């Protein structure tokens, strides 16, 4: 095994602490991509042996056996067996088992041992097992299994050196052999796993576990739900209030750069493109990075602490009533950050109809791309007051209301879909509830950094490109000196928008909105950058107008009814190319993404219309 860099896969049950071990071994040296043809995330990274020889590591989705029940579990099987396209068969496996759950985790370990690859078992989370009153004998476990067993505490980086040494020896000394006898049936396999676990257990003191005490409250039929709603509420309030100073700072920064370019570069086509197009457009989106990161922070914390599975438990009753399962709660909650990872997370839903329904309603969850739109409009049109002397802000409350409309809309849509186009058997819901754990700062930081990078890359590519194209369309042809029309209205883009305005005028949309809606097909937040660009073009070299905030500019031009209708539109409108593309890939065809786009636009039009007409009736037009 000299020459090529050995490739080693981390395999194990869900909740065995695989990802923490992977992070501890590779540090920041990791790369997330997709397996070709499927949207399962492929996490790869590098580590090195003590003498500096590199090894490449991949982290595989957690599974219970080599017989998959869902798409991501199938990837684990295919990689381990060397059947995954674009991935060579691993030279060795690190089998990660939870020291406190050997009975169960050894079943999969035994199945993997039968494959005949070099294997090292990482006896992980040994500290938590000790906290639970378990004393284990790793040497005995190693004798029983016939492979090296290394105790590890991934989150404290304990046992990593020993693990790599054992891995090196296992690879070097491995005698190639055929895969062992066909694995036992389920019952004998469990019996054997239990027997080995018992043999390796020196002492087991029954202690009343901390997790169970906490669950008495967290899973309480009433208190648990109250806690869940409270957590969600705090999360959305935090997104709105904590991010403000950072967002203001970023906004000021963009302004400084804009002014600097205006002052140092002579006026020409290129300067206008950069200042009015790129900086105004991309800048308007980048300022929302703090909010997106706060939202992701909450989701990552809920996931890492083990709370997410409890939330799924609490929500299953409600979701079961509309034909979904609690399994769908995690993808849907992720969709609050972005529908793309949310839709990808539906792979864990075993039932196909259940999964399809979850995909179709995922875009109704208020993703972070809507935040720029919501924040801009709420900031401009909803007064920053407290509600009736309480510490609850009116702006935050409106935001909460928008999130809630999306959720209620999604549940109603699911109810209808499950009785029509995605009709099927009532689905099951089976999932493991992990123990509670303190989230590890390191794991959270790595994950947050990856999300921030994905967002910034998007801002730098798709959003920058659409903004520049829009700027060109809105800047030419140049409006004649004596025209009553503004530059934006006179331009090619403005004329296209005038055509669209005919369709959207009945629901209260004006020319500004029509201009923003077309490029916002690329991504919702582009609506904001589009309005910023149009505003900047109309402002031209008028410095006073230029420095005017976009929100203030809109206040002068829009009625409250129009603003509210615009918000209602964005609760439903499927304006995101990435979501449509991922839906196509996940459903293997154009049928479902087209259906999704169609029904969402209909709902958006209806919701905006009803909002507008109601508001006008109340004299807000």
């Amino acid at each position, binding site marked *: 095994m000299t020459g090529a860099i050995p490739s080693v896969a981390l395999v194990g049950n869900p909740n065995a602490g695989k990802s923490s071990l992977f992070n501890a071994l590779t540090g920041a040296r990791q790369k997330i991509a997709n397996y070709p043809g499927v949207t399962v995330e492929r996490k790869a990274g590098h580590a090195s042996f003590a003498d500096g020889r590199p090894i490449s590591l991949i982290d595989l989705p957690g599974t219970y056996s080599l017989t998959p029940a869902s798409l991501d579990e199938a990837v684990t099987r295919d990689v381990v067996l060397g059947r995954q396209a674009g991935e060579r068969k691993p030279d060795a496996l690190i089998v990660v088992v939870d020291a406190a759950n050997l009975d169960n985790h050894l079943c999969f370990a035994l199945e993997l041992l039968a494959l005949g690859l070099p294997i090292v078992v990482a006896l992980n989370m040994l500290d938590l097992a000790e906290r639970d009153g378990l004393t284990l004998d790793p040497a005995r476990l190693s004798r029983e299994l016939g492979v090296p067993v290394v105790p590890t505490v991934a989150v404290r980086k304990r046992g990593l050196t020993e693990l790599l040494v054992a891995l090196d020896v296992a690879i070097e000394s491995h005698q190639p052999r055929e895969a062992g006898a066909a694995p036992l049936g389920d019952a004998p396999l469990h019996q054997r796993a239990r027997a080995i676990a018992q043999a390796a257990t020196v002492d087991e003191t029954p202690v009343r576990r901390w997790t169970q005490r906490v669950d008495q409250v967290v899973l309480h039929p009433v208190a648990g739900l109250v806690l869940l709603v409270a957590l969600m509420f705090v999360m959305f309030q935090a997104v709105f209030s904590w991010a403000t100073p950072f967002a203001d700072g970023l906004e000021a920064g963009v302004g400084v750069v804009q002014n600097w370019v205006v002052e140092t570069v002579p006026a020409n086509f290129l300067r206008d493109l950069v200042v009015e197009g790129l900086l105004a457009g991309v800048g308007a989106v980048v300022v929302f990075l703090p909010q997106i990161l706060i939202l992701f922070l909450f989701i990552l914390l809920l996931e890492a602490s083990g709370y997410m599975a409890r939330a799924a438990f609490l929500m299953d*009753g*409600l979701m079961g009533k509309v034909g979904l399962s609690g399994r769908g709660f995690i993808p849907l909650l992720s969709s609050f950050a972005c529908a793309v990872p949310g839709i990808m997370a539906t792979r864990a839903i075993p039932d196909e109809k259940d999964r399809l329904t979850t995909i179709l309603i995922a875009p109704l969850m208020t993703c972070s791309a809507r935040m720029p739109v919501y924040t801009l409009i709420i900031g401009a049109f909803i007064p920053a007051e407290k509600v009736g002397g309480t510490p609850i802000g009116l702006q935050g409350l409106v935001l909460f209301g928008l999130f809630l409309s999306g959720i209620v809309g999604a549940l109603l849509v699911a109810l209808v879909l499950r009785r029509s186009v995605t009709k099927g058997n009532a689905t099951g819901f089976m999932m493991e*509830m992990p123990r509670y754990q303190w989230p590890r700062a390191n794991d959270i930081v790595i994950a947050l950094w990856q999300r921030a990078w994905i967002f910034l890359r998007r801002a730098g590519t798709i959003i920058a490109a659409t903004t520049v194209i829009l700027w060109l369309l809105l800047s030419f042809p140049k409006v004649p000196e004596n025209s009553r029309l503004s530059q934006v209205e006179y331009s090619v883009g403005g004329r296209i928008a005038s055509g669209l305005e005919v369709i959207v005028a009945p629901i209260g949309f004006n020319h500004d909105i029509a201009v923003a809606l077309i490029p916002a097909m690329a991504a919702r937040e582009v609506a904001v950058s589009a309005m910023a660009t149009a505003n900047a073009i109309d402002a031209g070299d008028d410095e006073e107008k230029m420095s005017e905030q976009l929100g203030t500019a809109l206040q002068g031009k829009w009625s409250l009814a129009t603003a509210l209708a615009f918000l209602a539109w964005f609760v439903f409108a499927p304006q995101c190319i990435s979501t449509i593309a991922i839906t196509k890939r996940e459903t293997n065809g154009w049928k479902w993404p087209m259906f999704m786009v169609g029904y969402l636009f209909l709902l958006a039009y209806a919701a905006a219309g009803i909002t507008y007409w109601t508001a006008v009736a109340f004299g807000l037009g």
Partner: protein
Amino acid sequence: MTGLLDKSALGVAVRIKRIDWTAMSEDEGRRLREFGLMEGCEVTPRHRGSIFSRDPLALSVGRMQVIIRAKQAAVIEVEPIAA
């Protein structure tokens, strides 16, 4: 005296006597076994649903906690553990 798991009292350990594997799909059955739910094993029902419904059911199996639906628990026959 035997009963069905979906009707069992919370917090009391019981032993699984029989599971009607024909009442569920092959995948569901395998996942139950992967959770360690099979004839002869001990389980303790811990939590049941929320105000929305009596679904789902959270169980302790060995050192694991798992969630299943009442429909699945209804085909699992259990007996008290002899003192």
